């Protein structure tokens, strides 16, 4: 039982991260590789704000003993500030592979810096000691607290989902997709490209930071072995499976992929290596057979009319739009769907 609590909690945390990442990749079309860094920074900052003064030879910055919820909020602000810098540099003119490589460089630099500069977060050793904050105050057993924490994570995931859905179906969400589809045309209609992407980027980073704060309690410790930049590929795989640009699909994708992976790698040999192989295989297969994911993005986002006959074939993640073979059929399907 507690095993499933653990799995669901972890999947829930990564679902929050995935929602944030989907905003940047699914709605803005930018392939960001720095997002795991935001998660990591969120975890680290939450820990240095809650575990109190460092006991030598351990060393880290700050070392306050703030209440956990406050620490998460402050950590999230720090993450958004960091993302504000990265985003300001990368979102101006970099697109596609150049954007991806630059964000990867940024997160790799952070990764190495944290590893090597021990006064920051104690390098390779990392931080530990954030064990079930508030367990005594809530008068729970260890297992009781873990179950309670799962409920908190799922609750926050629900809240994140509602906010993301709201943005997805809003004029802002629609505008992001237009910027993604055709930037020049969006400019021709008065949209400031950088400003649009920047806001979405910071919102996504805020979700990643929140996920980081929750992960810190889940693991109760955090060091550089917990976050290599390539960990993000599992999240991308989950988004691919579930449905890029579709918030519900993203959450389902994370749960499906995460639970499936956890279960599968229990029985297969070579554990971790096999996991990497399977992730790669999953990505290749999804891109080949169903790039839009199980739940394709609805035209213009959530709450929009669900035109599907023309849409399914048109929804290729490479942003190539296939012409529908029979426009009359598309029209017929379109008029059947509900209007916006």
């Amino acid at each position: 039982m507690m095993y499933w609590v653990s799995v669901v909690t972890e999947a829930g945390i990564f679902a929050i991260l995935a929602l944030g990442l989907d905003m940047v990749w699914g709605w803005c079309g930018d392939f960001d590789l720095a997002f795991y860094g935001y998660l990591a920074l969120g975890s680290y900052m939450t820990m240095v704000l809650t575990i109190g003064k460092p006991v030598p030879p351990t060393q880290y910055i700050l070392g306050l003993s703030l209440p956990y919820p406050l620490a998460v909020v402050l950590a999230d602000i720090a993450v958004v500030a960091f993302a504000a810098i990265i985003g300001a540099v990368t979102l101006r003119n970099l697109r596609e592979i150049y954007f991806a490589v630059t964000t990867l460089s940024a997160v790799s630099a952070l990764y190495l810096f944290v590893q090597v500069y021990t006064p920051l977060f104690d390098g390779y050793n990392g931080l530990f000691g954030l064990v079930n904050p508030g367990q005594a105050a809530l008068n729970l057993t260890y297992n009781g607290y873990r179950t309670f924490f799962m409920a908190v994570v799922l609750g926050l995931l629900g809240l994140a989902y509602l906010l993301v859905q709201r943005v997805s179906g809003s004029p802002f969400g629609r505008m992001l997709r237009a910027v993604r589809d055709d930037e020049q045309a969006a400019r021709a209609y008065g949209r400031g490209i950088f400003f649009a992407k920047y806001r979405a980027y910071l919102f996504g980073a805020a979700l990643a930071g929140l996920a980081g704060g929750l992960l810190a309690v889940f693991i109760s410790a955090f060091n550089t072995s917990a976050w290599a930049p390539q960990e993000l590929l599992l999240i991308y795989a989950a988004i691919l499976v579930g449905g890029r640009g579709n918030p519900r699909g993203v959450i389902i994708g994370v749960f499906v992929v995460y639970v499936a992976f956890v279960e599968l790698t229990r029985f297969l040999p070579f554990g971790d290596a096999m996991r990497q192989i399977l992730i790669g295989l999953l990505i290749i297969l999804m891109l080949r057979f169903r790039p839009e994911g199980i739940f394709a993005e609805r035209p213009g986002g959530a709450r929009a009319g669900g035109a599907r006959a023309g849409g399914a074939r048109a929804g290729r993640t490479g942003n190539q739009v296939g012409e529908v073979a029979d426009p009359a059929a598309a029209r017929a399907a379109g008029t059947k769907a509900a209007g916006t």
Partner: protein
Amino acid sequence: MADGRAAAPATAGPQPAPLLAIENLAKSFGGVTAVRGCTFTVAEGTVVGLIGPNGAGKSTVVDLVSGFGRPDAGRISFAGREIAGPARWGSRRVKTMRPDRIARLGIIRTFQNPREWPQLTVLQNVLLARCAFGHESLWRTLTRARRIRREEAEDLAVARQILDRYQLGDLADVRAGTLSGGQKRLLEFARIAAAGPRLVILDEPMGGVNPVLGGRIGDAIRQFAADGHTVIVVEHNLPFIERICDEVIVMDVGEVIAQGSFDGLRGNPRVVDAYLGMDLSHG
């Protein structure tokens, strides 16, 4: 076909300031001079044709006016505002406004290929073109989503009307990427109508368009003018230009070689020369 041209404006008396004024515009790409010493004005409420052989620099001028390129020299002013001109203290660099800013000032341009937003529906394409920037605040979206949806209801009704006007009503909820070429052209016009700019610049709107649709496009352009918008049309189809334009500007090898009514062009030796004796009469 009805002759939609307005009577030639009287030349006596003070003229209102032109909506668009271009002065000595120049632009080179590497070693190729695309535009040089280009000067012309466009009066408000007119339909002006911009014609010339291939390579004359017409599309470059459109890019420069709409902010999608930086002039090497010259000055562009729109509605009294300078949108491109020498940087401060007379330096050689030309400072220019960003294209989205120019669009917000009231210049909407099309591109040679229809550029719809393929993953959005036809209706959403038109809604977006309506440029209700106030609805696109992220903060308001997170906190006042219901209010935004209510405010959008009016835009929605107008958008549907516009779609009906261009016979796209049935396609409102279809992904724009799946439309046929002709439908995409109509969608471009629907978007322009939704945006309601002071100046519309159409870059070869007749490309690959059949005569029936061409007739509708011509009517749509005359309707824009009747509604008070100013239109610049870059085109190769000369009978079309003759039918809908009040005035024509002819470019060749990067400069303006004539500006005036279409009839006047036939007698202009430079124009005839530029078109290598092409027949400028009705096709």
